[in-house]
């Protein structure tokens, strides 16, 4: 109490207005102690650290434009005859949802723009999250203490997929309706409860009259509400952990080097929001997205070729397209493996990347904090695994668009499907091996550079006739940066018998871990980085190049 009074009396004397307001707020919210730690918070500069910002800003854009759209959209499946201004649909029967989306596109000034910004921002949001996740994965930024934030991010990606799906299903057009039908078919394939879930979700038989209004509350309230909470949590953790940084001169695991939030990052990050928004607005001015008026209203007996979901569901679409039609009929029941296996694979495939941080930390047994990022080459097995995962994902994306691929590259759709079926198993293995080889090659080159300097490309002839390539020694900064990464030793199980000659019991999990650890850090799986002794020997021995 007394401090407040003195502060008040102090400020009343000659403090500027801004300070007075801040004092007022501090007395009620305690903003000074919050600002003390954060106002000059340091953020390292790297373009890849801004991928997350792209996601955050497109999420904000989606919320802003989404609110606008709710003012005009009617989430109703009542069938009406259309008499709006789009001639090629006049007189057609359609749901109110579809008709109101047509109105937004053709009769509300700026409505089309907002719709397109909303949809383009969603495409960019999901693509941004994908790339952001890959950045975090390949640099090892998910390691302690950031595993929980990795899970938050992962959940945001998955929820984003479903928010996107429920969103593009709302206009009740022929394309999205086909997607909803597919979803209903997939739900039916769930053993035991499938038929019930389908009846409850759709309020009866497909399509029924309920799914638009139900998807609507899921799309605008339930999922975005959870996502907003996760985004806030994600950001709090980013602030709390402080950002990771790449190795370099002056950068250690115990500091963070960069520019302060106020003013540089306030301007850069704040400015970047406007850049992202402006960019997406211009994208929406020049490129059409989801032109529902040419797709037509949904009818369960009509369809168009090229029926794909938005890109982020494309990999699920690929799984379902590539799967052979297995179906088991036993004791009066049907197990629809042709649909159910892709459903399970979809979950497993995403789940493995979500749990990866925990798998890796189990293998390394490393419980320390990590704030210095790995270069992908310095973690060859992790990088190989990540590239294998992305390869499988991409092959399934091709599978999801197999008809478009077939027509545009003059291939047979059956061959494309077979390519996807085989590629899903072979592609990741090849990608893993190739990536790992490349990483090890790059590690060797780094070691070489450290020991022998940079190859300058200048060929010199020595007096006795020998040709040599002149190597420029590296700067101290470069030497440090190239040797800053840590290298684990593979875990060993230990001797098979203990000191008394009695056979030691080794748990299966420990054996597995030793094997995995060897695959990560064994002799052929990482190149030992040069030691100071090696360097000194070479530089002192024949230091002429």
């Amino acid at each position: 109490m007394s401090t407040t009074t003195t502060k008040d009396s102090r400020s009343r004397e000659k403090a500027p207005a801004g300070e007075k307001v801040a004092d007022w707020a501090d007395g009620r919210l305690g903003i000074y102690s919050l600002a003390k730690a954060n106002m000059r918070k340091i953020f390292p500069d790297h373009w890849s650290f801004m991928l997350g910002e792209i996601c955050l800003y497109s999420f904000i854009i989606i919320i802003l434009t989404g609110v606008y759209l709710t003012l005009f959209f009617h989430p109703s499946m009542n069938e009406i005859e259309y008499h709006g201004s789009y001639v090629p649909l006049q007189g057609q029967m359609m749901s109110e949802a579809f008709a109101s989306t047509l109105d937004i596109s053709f009769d509300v000034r700026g409505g089309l723009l907002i719709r397109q910004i909303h949809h383009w921002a969603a495409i960019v949001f999901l693509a941004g999250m994908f790339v952001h996740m890959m950045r975090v994965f390949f640099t090892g930024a998910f390691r302690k203490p950031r595993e929980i934030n990795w899970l938050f991010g992962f959940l945001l990606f998955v929820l984003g997929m479903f928010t996107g799906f429920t969103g593009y299903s709302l206009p009740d057009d022929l394309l999205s309706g086909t997607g909803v039908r597919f979803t209903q078919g997939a739900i039916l394939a769930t053993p035991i409860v499938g038929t019930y879930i389908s009846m409850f979700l759709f309020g009866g038989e497909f399509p029924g009259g309920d799914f638009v209004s139900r998807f609507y509350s899921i799309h605008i309230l339930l999922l975005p509400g959870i996502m907003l909470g996760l985004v806030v949590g994600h950001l709090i953790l980013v602030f709390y952990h402080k950002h990771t940084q790449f190795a370099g001169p002056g950068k250690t695991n115990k500091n963070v080097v960069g520019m302060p939030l106020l003013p540089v990052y306030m301007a850069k990050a704040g400015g970047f929001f406007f850049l992202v928004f402006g960019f997406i607005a211009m994208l929406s001015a020049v490129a059409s997205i989801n032109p529902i008026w040419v797709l037509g209203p949904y009818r369960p007996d009509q369809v168009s070729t090229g029926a794909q979901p938005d890109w982020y569901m494309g990999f699920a679409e690929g799984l379902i397209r590539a799967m052979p039609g297995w179906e088991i009929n036993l004791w009066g029941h049907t197990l629809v493996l042709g649909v159910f296996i892709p459903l399970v694979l979809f979950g497993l495939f995403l789940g493995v990347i979500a749990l990866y941080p925990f798998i890796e930390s189990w293998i390394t047994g490393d419980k320390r904090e990590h704030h210095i990022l790995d270069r992908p080459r310095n973690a060859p097995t992790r990088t190989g695994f990540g590239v294998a995962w992305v390869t499988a994902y991409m092959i399934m994306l091709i599978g999801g668009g197999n008809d478009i691929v077939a027509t545009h590259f003059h291939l047979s759709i059956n061959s494309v499907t077979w390519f996807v079926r085989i590629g899903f198993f072979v592609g990741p293995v090849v990608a893993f091996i190739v990536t790992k080889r490349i990483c090890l090659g790059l590690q060797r080159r780094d070691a070489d550079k450290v020991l022998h300097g940079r190859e300058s490309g200048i060929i010199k002839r020595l007096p006795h006739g020998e040709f040599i390539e002149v190597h420029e020694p590296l700067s101290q900064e470069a030497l440090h940066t190239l040797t800053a990464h840590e290298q684990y030793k593979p875990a060993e199980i230990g001797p098979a018998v203990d000191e008394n000659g009695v056979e030691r019991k080794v748990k299966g999990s420990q054996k597995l871990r030793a094997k995995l650890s060897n695959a990560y850090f064994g002799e052929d799986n990482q190149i030992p980085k040069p030691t100071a002794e090696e360097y000194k020997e070479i530089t002192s021995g024949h230091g002429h190049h």
Partner: protein
Amino acid sequence: MSSQDIPEENLPAERAADEHGAVSVADEKHPFADPGLPPHEHRIQDIDERAAKRSERAVAFLFTMSMLATVGFIAAFVAIPVDEIVYIWPLGHISGLNFALGMTLGLALFCIGAGAVHWARTLMSDEEIADERHAIEASPEDRAKVHADFKQGAKESALGRRKLIRNTMLGALTLVPLSGIVLLRDLGPLPEDKLRHTLWRRGKLLVNMNTDEPLRASDVTVGSLTFAKPEGLEEHDHEFQNEIAKAALMIVRLEPKDIKDKRELEWSHEGIVAYSKICTHVGCPISLYEQQTHHVLCPCHQSTFDLSDGARVIFGPAGHALPQLRIGVNDEGYLEALGDFDEPVGPSFWERG
């Protein structure tokens, strides 16, 4: 799973700050030592006031552009009719209003962002600062204090001792969400046998989707493709969408000699066969009929069926053949159904059997 079973020495040695941290100097002993933050270099704007002025003007220019663009946005909103189509190369015939609003709004926002970033990059200090990190884990004292506090609290609540309270409370908390789940029951009806029946009945005429007229056998020529719905189902009907989702038919005529499946021939009328239009995979309306191969392909997931052989699956993810509707001809020459489908149409489900 604890860290104990990995020996400490397998963990890489951390480069301790005291070994060669930010203050250490690269010397003979540590050739790879951290030389510390490189000295700050000045930008042109830091040393040349004219360059700084140029930057200032550039930032101000961008902010001014933004203001003009917003004025342009409002002008476009007022001036351009919502239905005006303009030709803009290379975009094509597009909505003038959408283009104008999008470009002006985009420019207005982008210029603010570009101005702010340019300001930050050229005029704000670009000196890199190092900030210390602190361990996230609490100190041992704090840890001990929290544990002690918790134990104290737990003890005072006597939750561990008074088992009756604990068990009944857990029971109550477990049961109470059930009400919420039970409330979801009325989201929809029970499945019963809804998925097994369609509108088709014995004697129902096959109505051409295009003309809304009943189909005559003579209308359907070899190699043609026609879609049909049951007589009496109209587009304005309340249940139209639900019914057509099950009853939609695909009618083709094959030469009877081309039909390999005996039952298919029996259920046809002189080679006119009626198959469900709804794919048995996940329910897309399947209808990419190739009249020479008699294959029909689903555009969604490429299940391929052979219409000359009982519509069996020859490629793709569908698990069973398309259901066939048994048809005949009435006295007046119109095609009619001879009953409902004898199996559920559309995607498989658990109870299908």
